[in-house]
């Protein structure tokens, strides 16, 4: 049996189960799109100072911000929740007892999450362009795509790492949401941080979320004249991704924890 074909088959089955699971679809797909609509209704016409690139419209701020949220929710939140549940109900252990290579199983989860993220970002950008008159930049599109890929990979790794720190499936929602929700508020995603105290900005800059939204913001800025790569931010995101891989290798478990 061809292992690559097996791995791709996992993606197909992951995809099928995901779209049949109403809570997963709601939290991963519907919620970011709801936020996009709500924030645009509230702040779409405001001018927002992005500091490093000058002032942009609220819509231009929120499209890359919600794109970042979509990637985080499809990769980090979704993987951390689903894998914790699958571990504690014994699905991981059952799979471990079959000839399916472990990497093929994880490949299915990660690639599927990334595809959902790509789909969501495409929807967010399309909605922004059609309904909120957001300019979709072409010269920075490669930077936008590279940033998405690095972000998706890193947040998938962090999602897997988080399962190692989640004591059991009951604790998963609290740990996952508790780790990500506060960061979404201090990372230029829900609220522009122009009036935030310096220490909060500094604190937010420790984590990858803020760098991700900034990097996407630059790569999605219609006034950006360069290629739009935020190399420093990308390096921080990638470093968190590497940390995620290392923690996963050390703490990831196929055995239920009850």
């Amino acid at each position, binding site marked *: 049996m061809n292992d690559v074909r097996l791995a791709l088959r996992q993606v197909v089955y992951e995809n099928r189960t995901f779209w049949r699971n109403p809570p997963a679809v709601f939290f991963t797909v519907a919620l970011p799109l709801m936020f996009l609509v709500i924030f645009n209704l509230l702040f779409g016409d405001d001018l927002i100072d992005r500091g490093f690139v000058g002032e942009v419209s609220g819509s231009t701020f929120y499209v890359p911000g919600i794109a970042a949220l979509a990637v985080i929710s499809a990769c980090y939140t979704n993987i951390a929740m689903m894998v914790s549940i699958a571990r504690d109900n014994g699905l991981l*252990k059952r799979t471990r007892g079959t000839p399916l290579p472990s990497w093929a199983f994880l490949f299915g989860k990660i690639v599927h999450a990334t595809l959902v993220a790509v789909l969501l970002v495409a929807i967010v950008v399309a909605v922004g362009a059609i309904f909120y008159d957001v300019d979709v930049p072409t010269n920075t599109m490669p930077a936008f795509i590279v940033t998405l890929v690095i972000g998706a990979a890193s947040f998938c790794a962090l999602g897997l790492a988080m399962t190692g720190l989640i004591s059991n499936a009951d604790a998963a929602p609290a740990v996952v949401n508790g780790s990500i929700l506060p960061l979404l508020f201090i990372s230029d995603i829900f609220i522009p941080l122009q009036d935030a105290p310096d220490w909060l900005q500094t604190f937010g800059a420790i984590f990858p979320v803020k760098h991700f939204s900034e990097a996407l913001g630059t790569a999605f800025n219609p006034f950006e004249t360069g290629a739009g790569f935020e190399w420093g931010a990308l390096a921080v995101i990638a470093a968190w991704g590497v940390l995620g891989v290392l923690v996963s290798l050390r703490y990831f478990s196929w055995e239920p924890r009850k």
Partner: protein
Amino acid sequence: MTTETATATAISVTNLRKSYGDLEAVRGIDLHVSQGEVFALLGPNGAGKTTTLEILEGHRERTAGEVSVLGHDPQRNERDFKDRIGIVLQDTGVERYLTVEEVIELFRGYYPHPLPRDQIIEMVGLEEKRTSLVRRLSSGQQRRLDVAIGLAGDPDLLFLDEPTTGFDPAARRNAWEMIKGLNAAGKTVFLTTHYMEEAQYLADRVAIIARGEIVAEGAPIDLIGREAITTISFEDPGDGPPPYPVSEFATLIDGRIVIETSGPTALLYALTSWATEHSVELEGLTVAPWTLEDVYLKLTADPELEEGPEAEQ
């Protein structure tokens, strides 16, 4: 040609030990299971049953000892080993948003020579549920799906961890017939169970594990025969008639006189002669050979209760 086909050995375990910190869960056990056999590992909770099973399946690493399953060392996690075994654990989840057919198809795809999908569905009797989502199955149906997944790869060796726990009597009978059928088709079956009648009905040989050690091993009939005890019991006739002749061997349990004997014929003769003579009806008289359950209870009894605390050491 692998060695296990030459010797027809499916599982060979020598001096297996497993410790969790200071706790020694398995204390040097030996097991031998031949190909084509149904072998049952019996023991109370915490006796080391699941630990042993999971070491054989490759889910756990041993602390010491030799283990060979189908010629492989299970803890090396080899692909060709996984190709040839089927595992049915307790409480293992299935993707709840797939249908019965889809789940079986998914797992079939992992193996080089799977059984045909419809044959698997028929074997476990889920024909009417083939297009139902897993989340809509009853617990008995989910258990049958567990077995179906274990069979997907047409395994040479099937591990069944308490396969019929929670089944109603009819479903248990069906499961037994299914396991007999698998065995007739040449599969080796290694099962654990709490139900002695299940072991007695299904297993060619059983091993009883208690406190991490094997306390008895053999064919059920031999284990029972070794004890060669018959239980005679009847309702306590009360104070009216004169004492019956065998009262020194008897114990009173829940209003019944219970006598365990290795010489039932003479004892019954004495008892019934006495009853006839005194016109006493022995209400509810039963004469029963020991079952595997009696043997099991005797062998797994906690020595701290029977022989005092120092017996453990």
